[in-house]
């Protein structure tokens, strides 16, 4: 109960208090500081209870004489403290739920809450991966329904559902290719990757035992077809193309590229991270692609969760399908489902290159993605691609007069708009603009990627942003861009309103502190 009997009325107050900006607690109203669990918890404290009279270890423990004889040092918190700890931490994060998160190449779209609800149905959340198959027909049905949709949407022949993320999908695709080549006794050791490719492409190729060579881009930001053709040969196992590419552009020569690669006896891997731009509009299968991963956590909106979990199913051409990994789900005439695993592979799938994960892939992501796909339907998914592309072009055309847009002349972009720092005052860079955007209440765009553009700024708004949200973002970027060109020093101070000012990454890397040590307590307290 609160009243204001004094009838006090506010008058414009001084801002000194802000300027000096110190509070006893270090908090700033709703921007709350939060210590580490190691600083507030204790090893005696716990936030769980056990029932009275529960059996505790019997006299004859069966631990093989390896009973713990040292403390672990795990602090506990009561539930009241734990909920508060994580809630306060969460408030130091930016997220899609808070505003525009135009991180290029990451497809940060709205995560529907229906999908969270569905994934938590006991029939999905509380089922063991090794339950007898007659007890998990619903789970197998989900995997198979989703697989059918992915095949229809991509026009491909087969799909491997078990990869756990995009990079894992890349690996799956390359291993299929390798298996296919080895099956024909053709040992090739090179994979060609455009300079503009995402880091996981070359890393994956190396991980799969291949040597990586770059292929150049032309000035229109596309793969240089002639250069590519020139390099193709009997040693090239595969070409990894991202389409739409990381400059946010569609590769118009895709079919020609595929034909050339196939002509040279290689395979075409497509990085499908940007599938959101073309879902329901173009089917990679029609472009001669042999393998493509789909990031369910991008195109199909399973939440990124601060860095996963994701899911990276890989669609495969007829040529590669026989080599796909185990296990997978087979559907019987009678509508029942069966897992094809090591034991029955010999009959049903003899050329499988092997197994990528312990169980069946990211079931919790499959349920979400399927709910997402069913919600949109064929019409809604097409609209997704169209709106994503429209939003990106709207940003491109609304900013190209204040920010250098290297490929804007070459026509429309797809789902992301790419800018460079050309024209900024010497001492101002892309990082400064990004940090200033933080103060404006936006997450920055992807910075310094792709590497082919100087001080790259890759903006992917996605289809779930309203025009009003884009307009506000554009206004903010325009004003910051002007300041960047004018060399406004105050940009260096940004962000000023975030939970932290700029952080010293170099220090972190020079003297890594990766875990909490009690010794620090003192130091931290200083």
């Amino acid at each position, binding site marked *: 109960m609160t009243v204001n009997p004094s009838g006090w009325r506010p008058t414009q107050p001084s801002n000194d208090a802000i300027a000096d900006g110190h509070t006893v607690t270090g908090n700033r109203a709703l921007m709350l500081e939060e210590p580490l669990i190691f600083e507030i918890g204790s090893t005696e404290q716990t936030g769980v209870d056990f029932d009275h009279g529960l059996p505790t270890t019997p006299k004859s423990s069966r631990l093989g004489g390896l009973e713990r004889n040292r403390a672990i040092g795990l602090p506990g918190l009561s539930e009241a403290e734990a909920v508060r700890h994580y809630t306060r931490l969460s408030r130091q994060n930016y997220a899609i739920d808070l505003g525009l998160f135009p991180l290029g190449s990451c497809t940060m779209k709205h995560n529907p809450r229906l999908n969270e609800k569905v994934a938590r149905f006991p029939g999905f959340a509380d089922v063991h991966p090794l339950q007898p198959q007659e007890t998990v027909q619903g789970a197998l049905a989900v995997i198979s329904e989703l697989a059918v949709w992915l095949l229809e949407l991509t026009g491909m022949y087969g799909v491997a559902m078990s990869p756990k993320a995009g990079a894992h999908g*890349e690996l799956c695709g390359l291993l299929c290719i390798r298996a296919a080549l080895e099956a024909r006794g053709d040992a090739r050791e090179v994979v060609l990757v455009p300079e503009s490719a995402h880091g996981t492409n070359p890393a994956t190729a190396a991980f799969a035992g291949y040597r990586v060579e770059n292929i150049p881009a032309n000035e229109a930001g596309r793969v240089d077809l002639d250069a590519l053709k020139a390099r193709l040969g009997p040693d090239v196992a595969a070409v990894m193309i991202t389409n739409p590419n990381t400059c946010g552009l569609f590769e118009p020569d895709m079919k020609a590229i595929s034909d050339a690669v196939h002509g040279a006896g290689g395979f075409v891997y497509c990085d499908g991270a940007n599938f959101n731009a073309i879902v329901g509009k173009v089917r990679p299968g029609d472009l001669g692609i042999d393998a493509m991963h789909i990031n369910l956590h991008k195109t199909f909106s399973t939440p990124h969760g601060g860095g996963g979990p994701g899911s990276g199913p890989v669609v495969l051409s007829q040529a590669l399908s026989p080599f796909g990994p185990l296990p997978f789900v087979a559907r019987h005439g009678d509508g029942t489902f069966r897992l094809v695993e090591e034991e029955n592979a010999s009959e049903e799938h003899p050329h499988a290159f092997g197994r990528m994960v312990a169980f069946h892939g990211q079931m919790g992501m499959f349920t979400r993605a399927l709910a997402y796909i069913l919600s949109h339907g064929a019409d809604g998914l097409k609209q997704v691609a169209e709106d994503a592309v429209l939003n990106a072009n709207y940003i491109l055309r609304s900013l190209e007069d204040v920010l250098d847009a290297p490929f804007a002349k070459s026509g429309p972009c797809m789902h992301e708009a790419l800018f460079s720092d050309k024209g900024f005052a010497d001492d101002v860079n892309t990082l400064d603009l990004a940090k200033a955007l933080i103060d404006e209440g936006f997450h920055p765009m992807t910075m310094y990627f792709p590497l082919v553009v100087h001080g790259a700024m890759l903006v992917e708004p996605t289809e779930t942003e309203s025009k009003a949200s884009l307009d506000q973002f554009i206004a903010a970027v325009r004003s910051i861009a002007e300041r960047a060109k004018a060399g406004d020093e105050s940009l260096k101070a940004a962000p000023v309103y975030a939970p932290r000012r700029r952080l010293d990454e170099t220090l972190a890397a020079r003297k890594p502190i990766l875990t909490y040590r009690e010794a620090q307590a003192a130091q931290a307290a200083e």
Partner: protein
Amino acid sequence: MRYLPLSDADRSDMLRLVGASTIDELFRDVPGEARLHGPIAGLPMHASEMAVERHMMALSRRNMVASDVPFFLGCGAYKHHIPASVDHIIQRGEFLTSYTPYQPEIAQGTLQMMFEFQTQVARLFGCEVANASMYDGSTAMWEAILMAHRITRRKKTVISSGVHPHYVSVAKTMAKFTEDALDTALPELVAETDVERLIGQIDGETSAVVVQYPDILGRIADLAPIAEAVHSAGGLLIAVVTEPVALGMIRSPGEMGADIVVGEGQSIGVGLQFGGPYVGLFACREKHVRQMPGRLAGETVDAEGKRGFVLTLSTREQHIRREKATSNICTSSVLCALAFTAHLTLLGEEGLRQLASVNHARACEAAERLAAIPGVELVNDSFFNEFTLKLPIEARPAVHAMVERGVLGGVSLGRLYPGIEGLQNGLVVAVTETATNEDIDALEAKLKEVVR
């Protein structure tokens, strides 16, 4: 469409501004013949939330729910009670809908949580450092083998027969392509693990020995002798933990000399979910950190000198190092790591110890009672919350027969090692705090029925 904010009016205004008369003009780089016209034929159109929810509910009801029946499955995925607050925490939009923390000033929530997670994992495993998560235990194990290979510059790895067979096949699959040599074997239904064999296989070429602790049959063996042997040969010891709750009661692999400890974090904070998403745990010695795969959060200061956290040592990673990266991993399993760290913070050391004791006590009780069934033998001398029974009949049909009687009675070795002589009668039974006395009664009764 309920998720799309643009109205048709917005769309035409925006098209006008970008100077296109139709949306398809924006797709003009797509060759005409490849462009689809209209929604893909034969697929359903958009559906209401209610319709989708009903469809998914109907599918979910075709699964037997672990909590609805007496349940005793383990072998790499464990059913534990997860406090309701954990699910509340991971549904906070600021965690759920954020990306990998590339902009630390507005990602301190995720970064501090990662730092806390890394510390908890390192301490639980008895290591100096841990990363911010891998996909799962099986992929983490392969990454550990590769890491050892980078450190020792050797390609031979000896894998214990007690390692989860799926983990082994993931490693075998990868090794085919990286030309790593894996020395593997099949387990036997005996009380002892294959320590002898492992030590015997170690030589100057050995990059690492990989042991699971407790192993696939639930057996617990001291890792110290193996550590000693492999170290003296210049190799490393990799330990795999698929049931971290056990470490509330038994010694950590790190204490016993393991150089790299990886694990499956599912059993703390993450539901069964038919196998995924789970969370890979990865810990090692500080001196090896630059060979480690995956994200690392590190402590630093901001421009005002305040403590803060950032992603660090990224020169190990694909986005900087590309083909020279220690791994190709990018998106990992951070939200599951949050569930893990939140649950472990609720438990604390005291709660973890109690949880472990309850698990062990329940398992001891069940083991005694089941071993008393005529014809049924307990294989293990040592176990934590999971043990292996040798049945008088093949275990796989027995499991199906128990299902018909409404009991999920365990994992048959026939499922994990199809067609392998000598393992077909093995049944692995996991008993956690979620098993009630009535559940154990039911298992005993039904198993009796089916083996008689």
